[in-house]
Each structure stands twice: as structure tokens, then as C-alpha cells.
């Protein structure tokens, strides 16, 4: 069974006004459990609108045509809406702006409390969530979230979502506005979360390098439609289309193209620095072998 099934999903904002905007246009998508799905697309392409359908924050507009089913739960079903909300954890853009409690501990406990879990379970989950995001419980639990650094706030906010232990974790630009160290720490954390807490992860990002590195599968959106869908290598090999929909190639792919221009014969489908390095190493070894064998390559 796939974790997420979207059928013919269309969504129009401000219907029948001059502000009318077709944010999603006939989206069909099915995501297998255990996938790390990356969503890319230029500003306003409908990414946030799409993910908010997954836990029923945005209601399916045309129930006759469209359907949203997550882990067997229909998003149009009122009775299971709460359950759906706990099944799909969404970390919004700049989640630190949603902190509200006077201590970190209480803020992280907000979600589990709404799940009506017993107090010991809540405490255990808060402790675990804080440790998972790399914040020492004893050091941070009693501090006010408003006096933390930006990166620490972000971690607290993410902890607030993973404390609900959602089976599907959705992150909308989780590293926007962080410094390079903060970025790589949070990205590493997300990869870890997939192993520890939420097997299925969906991440929206404007950074092609991050997405190429983390995702198993990428969908590229443009004007409310899914224009590309496949593994990172497949998606980023489609250079024309990527350019057409206002996106960029990962640095490693661009570097590979430049090197190919200079006459170095690298395979296509390189999207991460590691792959590039491996290919280059292979060539070097190959060349070395050739030299040993007295070949005529230079």
C-alpha cells in the first residue's frame, strides 16, 4: 500500500474573484512508504498548497473529482481528521515563529498533549524528541524558546512536530535562513529522522544540492502541475525542462557538464558531489591503469 495517494487534485484560491489562482492543477501522485520525496519548484508553483492537503489543513475543494488518501485515511473524512493530523507531521516554513509556550518543554509537549497521551508518555516523548534534534534535555527543557538562537529555535519547533511521532514527516524548506553549519546539521538530522521516527519524509526545498543529496525521488512542480518525476539523476538529466520551469541544476551536475565540455568523459546522471568524486576517481584509476598498460590516453 502506498503511503500517499493523490488523485486529480485541483485547488483554486479565492475562487470567483479577481484574485483567483489555480494553485494545483490536476495533480496525481502516489508515494510509497519509506520514500524520501523531494519537492522542488519555483516560488508560487503550489508546493505549500500541495503539502497542506496531506493532513487536511486545506480541504479538498472538489470531493467528487479529487481524492487525498494518506495511510488509508481519506482527508475528506471528518471523523478521522484528527488521526490524520497526527499521522502526518508538517513542519512549516520558519517554524520558529510559531513557538508560544514559556518553556521549551511545554512547547514540545503541545502536540502530544493534543493527542491526549498519558503524562508519562508525553514526558518521555518530549525528552526523546529534544535529544533527537540534538538539544540536551537538561540544558534546554526549562529555558524560554524566545531566548534561543535561530537554529536552536528551529530545532525546538521540529522537535514539537516529531514528538507526535508522525509516520509521515513533511518539511517545508526546513533550512531556509540558517547559516551553513546550521543547515548541514538540520539536514543530517532529517536523514536521521527517517531512520528513527518517520519512515516517509517529504521535503520542500529551493536548494537543488540538498534535495539531490537527500531524496530518493523528486517531483518538480510548475504552475500547479507536476512537470518532472523521478530519481534525482533522472530529474536533473532533463536539463531543458529544468531550465524551462525556472529551476537550476545541482552544483555537481553543472560542474560535471563543465568538465565534459573540457573533454573529460564523465557519465550523465551525476547530481551529488560524492558521485562526482567517485566518477572522477574511477577515471583517474582507469587512466592510471591505461598508463601502466602503455595506452595512448593523455
Amino acid at each position: 500500500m502506498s503511503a500517499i495517494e493523490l488523485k486529480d487534485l485541483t485547488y483554486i484560491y479565492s475562487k470567483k474573484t479577481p484574485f483567483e489562482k489555480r494553485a494545483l492543477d490536476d495533480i496525481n501522485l502516489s508515494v510509497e512508504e519509506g520514500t524520501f520525496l523531494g519537492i522542488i519548484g519555483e516560488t508560487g508553483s503550489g508546493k505549500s498548497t500541495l503539502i497542506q492537503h496531506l493532513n487536511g489543513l486545506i480541504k479538498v475543494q472538489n470531493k467528487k473529482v479529487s481524492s487525498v488518501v494518506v495511510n488509508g485515511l481519506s482527508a475528506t473524512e471528518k471523523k478521522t481528521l484528527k488521526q490524520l493530523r497526527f499521522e502526518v507531521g508538517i513542519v512549516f516554513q520558519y517554524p520558529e515563529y510559531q513557538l508560544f509556550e514559556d518553556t521549551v518543554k511545554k512547547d514540545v509537549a503541545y502536540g502530544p498533549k493534543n493527542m491526549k497521551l498519558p503524562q508519562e508518555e508525553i514526558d518521555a516523548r518530549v525528552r526523546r524528541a529534544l535529544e533527537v534534534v540534538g538539544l540536551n534535555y537538561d540544558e534546554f527543557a526549562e529555558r524560554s524558546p524566545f531566548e534561543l538562537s535561530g537554529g536552536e529555535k528551529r530545532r525546538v519547533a521540529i522537535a514539537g512536530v516529531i514528538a507526535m511521532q508522525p509516520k509521515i514527516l513533511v518539511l517545508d524548506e526546513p533550512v531556509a535562513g540558517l547559516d551553513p553549519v546550521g543547515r548541514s546539521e538540520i539536514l543530517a538530522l532529517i536523514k536521521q529522522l527517517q531512520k528513527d521516527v518517520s519512515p516517509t519524509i517529504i521535503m520542500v526545498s529551493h536548494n537543488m544540492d540538498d534535495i539531490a543529496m537527500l531524496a530518493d525521488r523528486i517531483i518538480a512542480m510548475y504552475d500547479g502541475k507536476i512537470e518532472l518525476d523521478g530519481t534525482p539523476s533522472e530529474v536533473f538529466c532533463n536539463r531543458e525542462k529544468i531550465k524551462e520551469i525556472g529551476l537550476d541544476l545541482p552544483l555537481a551536475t553543472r560542474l560535471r557538464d563543465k568538465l565534459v565540455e573540457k573533454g573529460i568523459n564523465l557519465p550523465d546522471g551525476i547530481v551529488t558531489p560524492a558521485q562526482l568524486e567517485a566518477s572522477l576517481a574511477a577515471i583517474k584509476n582507469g587512466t592510471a591503469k591505461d598508463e601502466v598498460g602503455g595506452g595512448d590516453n593523455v
Partner: protein
Amino acid sequence: MFRDISFGQYYPTNSLVHKLDARVKLLLTILFVVVIFFIKSYFGFMLTAFVLIVIILTARLPIISVLKSIRGILFIIIFTSLINLFFVKQGEILWHWKIFTITKVGVHTTIKMVLRLVLLISGASLLSLTTTPVQLADGVESIMAPLKLIKFPVRDVAMIMSIALRFIPTLFEETNKIIAAQKARGASFDTGGFFARAKAMMPVLIPLFVNSFRRADELAFAMDARCYNATDKRTKMKKARIGFGDIVALLFMLSFATVILLDRYYFAGVGITIDYWIFGDLL
């Protein structure tokens, strides 16, 4: 920028009404609102409704956008009309039960009050539907200009007003975002009694306030960085001018006001006679 806000938000159609000078629109709106309180007869109400519809059509607004603004005060309308209906105790009694009495005068007072409120709100909403917040703030500044003589800080007030107006949609958007985020953590805002609901709003209100202060700080820095100084003489990028259309609008509204006032004071009764002529025994 303006999202799903349903009360008197700006509705661009590039009509003649939209192009009127904001000051003129502001004054005419005030005139309209005042005049509404002088309406006495049903004839007067019909005339006002007619004028309103003419304006709405000229502005090329969908009627629904105007009616939406009434939705906000629906509760007040219902509440006051019930009070009026049951507690005005003059004239012929139509119905009586315990302390509740409905009289003919009560019914008419109620109907007229509802009409008055509906016309009032629709009329006032036309201003915000056809004028951008910035134009409105400039208009206010220009109208208040004489107050500078008594050292009233007109410029500051106008700047405060335009900033406030500018941030209404931002605050709405932000509120929606925070609500979404807390809902994603299982918050529910529509269950429980009054206090439970008020308490459920705290996770929304606190971040909203915190963010507003942060934003106010940022804005102050940004203004400072661009050498904003409220006491210096500032010039406008767009200078408003009174044009032909403004004069037409002015004359149109003045004649409307004259008819209503004449109906009330001078020809006292013409409207009422027409009322009798139309509604007969119902009155």
C-alpha cells in the same frame, strides 16, 4: 498580497469610482453615512438603495462583495432588531405573550433600523472596496491638514495609519499560517465552551504578538536606514488632483442628500405619502 479576507477589502476593477480622488470619496462616504440617519420614509430607503446600487454598478463590483461586509455585523443586526421588535411598545398591538409585545410601530422601527444598518455598512464598505489603503491614508492626511495649525502631528498620524492599514493583510496571512501550524499539532479551535476556545487561541495569539513586535522593530530599523524623519516635509510620489469625475460624484451625492433632507424637513410627508401609496394598509 490580499488573500481570502472577506471584509471590505480592496477590489480592483479600474472603474470610474476607483479613479475618484480619495479625499472626495472619504468626504462623500461621511456624507452618505450621515444622510442615512436622516431618512424617515420607506421612499427614502428605496432612493438610498437605488443610489447605492448605481454606485456599485458604476464601480463594477459584484454585489456579493458588498454583501459580504454585512456578514460581519449580522449578529449585531439580529440582536438589535430582536430588542427593537419586542420592546418598542407603541401603537397597535399585533401579538402579545408574557413580557413580549409586538406592535406595529415596533415592526416598522425594526425594519427601518435593519435597512439603516445594512445601507450604512454597505455604503461604508464601498470606500474600502474601491480605495487602496495607501490612497485612503493620503486622503486622511490631506483632509486633516488644517490641524497642523494647532500643532497636531498630522504626518505622524497619517504614517501610523498607512502602516497599520498596510499590515492588516500581512497580519491576516500570518494568523492563518500560525493557525495552520498549530492545527498541524492537533489544536482545535472550534470545540468546547467559550473559555476553552479562548484558551485554545493562546497558541495563536502569543506568536502573533511576538512576531508583530519583531516586525515593528525591523520596520523601524528599515525606515531609519532610509532616513525617514517624520518632521521633515515629505513629498508625494503620486499627487492627487480633483478631476471632472470628482465634481460629478460630488453633485450626484449632494443632490441625493438634498432630496433626503427635503423629504424629512421641508416636504415632511411627501415620502410618507408615497409610502402609503405603495404599501397602503401595511403601514
